């Protein structure tokens, strides 16, 4: 079984987000980069399949040389080899097309992407990749069990779970639940040393135009003071909830 885990290099959740170049670019000064948490859940599940089924695990990302420490970390966690497509990840369409061009040649049985990246929150790469590869896709995947030829899956839906059955090949959008936070693998010294010897291939991107561009960024305004509503003034409460909070 060949597994591809698509990795995104994202700012740490605790990083302060600021912008430069007239709010057109993320200020990377002092920002620590991590493996996108949803991708890490997927990678851990892939490593389990590697241990149980003898699967081979490849990690791939679209990005410049600054993404390589993250790929080395994936190799230290247990991935067999890594691929970096040397391009600026302009948007989800562009990333999906680059990954699809690579995955098509390798004929993977299972492709794992994160549900969404925590930087651009696009949540589209998995679905688009599946469409390019002509494979079925399952978003918000919280369980994946292989039983012979069939795969038992679970998807998180609003207010519940959906149980599915399918076959490989397959693309899934991983999220918390596929493995728990306590299951995430912290690379040990042996893994870190081995990662230095594992192959990290750098590929040239294919010609493809992104479908969107970002004009500018803006930080949300500071929160205003708490509005206190008189206990008897139900009309004002309803008005605020409906027109200001858009909650009802």
């Amino acid at each position, binding site marked *: 079984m060949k597994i591809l885990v698509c990795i995104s290099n994202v700012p740490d959740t605790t990083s302060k987000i600021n912008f430069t170049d007239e709010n057109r670019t993320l200020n990377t000064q002092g920002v620590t980069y991590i493996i996108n948490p949803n991708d890490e859940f997927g990678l851990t599940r892939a490593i389990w399949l590697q241990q149980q089924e003898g699967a081979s695990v490849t990690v791939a990302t679209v990005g410049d040389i600054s993404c390589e420490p993250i790929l080395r970390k994936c190799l230290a966690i247990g991935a067999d080899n890594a691929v970096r497509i040397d391009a600026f990840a302009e948007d989800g369409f562009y990333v999906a097309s680059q990954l699809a061009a690579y995955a098509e040649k390798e004929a993977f049985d299972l492709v794992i992407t994160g549900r969404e990246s925590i930087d651009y929150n696009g*949540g*589209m790469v998995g*679905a688009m990749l599946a469409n390019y590869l002509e494979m079925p896709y399952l978003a918000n995947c919280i369980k994946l069990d292989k039983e012979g030829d069939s795969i038992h899956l679970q998807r998180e839906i609003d207010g519940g*779970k959906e149980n599915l059955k399918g076959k490989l090949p397959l693309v899934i959008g991983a999220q918390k639940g596929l493995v728990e936070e306590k299951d995430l693998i912290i690379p040990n010294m042996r893994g870190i040393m081995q990662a230095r010897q594992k192959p990290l291939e750098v590929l040239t991107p294919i010609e493809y135009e992104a479908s969107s561009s970002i004009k500018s*960024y803006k930080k949300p305004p500071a929160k205003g003071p708490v509005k206190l509503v008189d206990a008897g003034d139900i009309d004002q409460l309803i008005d605020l909830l409906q027109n200001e909070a858009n909650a009802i």
Partner: protein
Amino acid sequence: MSVLVYIETQNKEIKKSSLEVASYGRAIADAKSTSLIAVCFGLEDSLHLAGYGVDKVFVIPTAGDIYFNAERYSSTMVDIAMAEAADLLIVSGSANGRFIGPLTAIKFEATYFSNVVGLPTAYGPVEVKRSCFSNKAFNHSISKKDKVVISLSSNSFGIHEKVVEAAQFEGTYSSSTSSLEVMTVEQASDKVYCGCRYCCFRWKRFKGA
């Protein structure tokens, strides 16, 4: 060029997030001086949507397919969008909406914008404000394609009633070659018991459960 919205249902009733999507779609249709089309699957009384500004409702009979099927739903939406010359498709920010959104976009050869938090600021090309960095920031994104699929963030627009004359049509349900099959759906219970002998025992006895 019309605007098309995906109306999500649960237990044959329209979900609240879809009423917000319909209201949002109406506002865009008004801004573009065009009509608003809704697509719903397995819904009996769809004319209720006329109260939220929907001009045309396509009801898709999903006999034998009782659960949400992203592959078939997205293909059906794309077929209707092409037949009705729609250039802007809107889905909700729910789990199903975010599942169907990118699938629809790629089949429709459209740009996909998720987490959109307001009406487009421009229509030629479409420019939207969307949240990013896990709600720590917003960005203004511009489409490079003529066709766009928007996933509206929940509670970002609100529900606005607008009564119009609506016409109902029956659409054709697209087929699928997907090997994935939904077996069961587990809805979370509103009764949450931790199973202890203190609170749960007393609460169950109090409720007669």
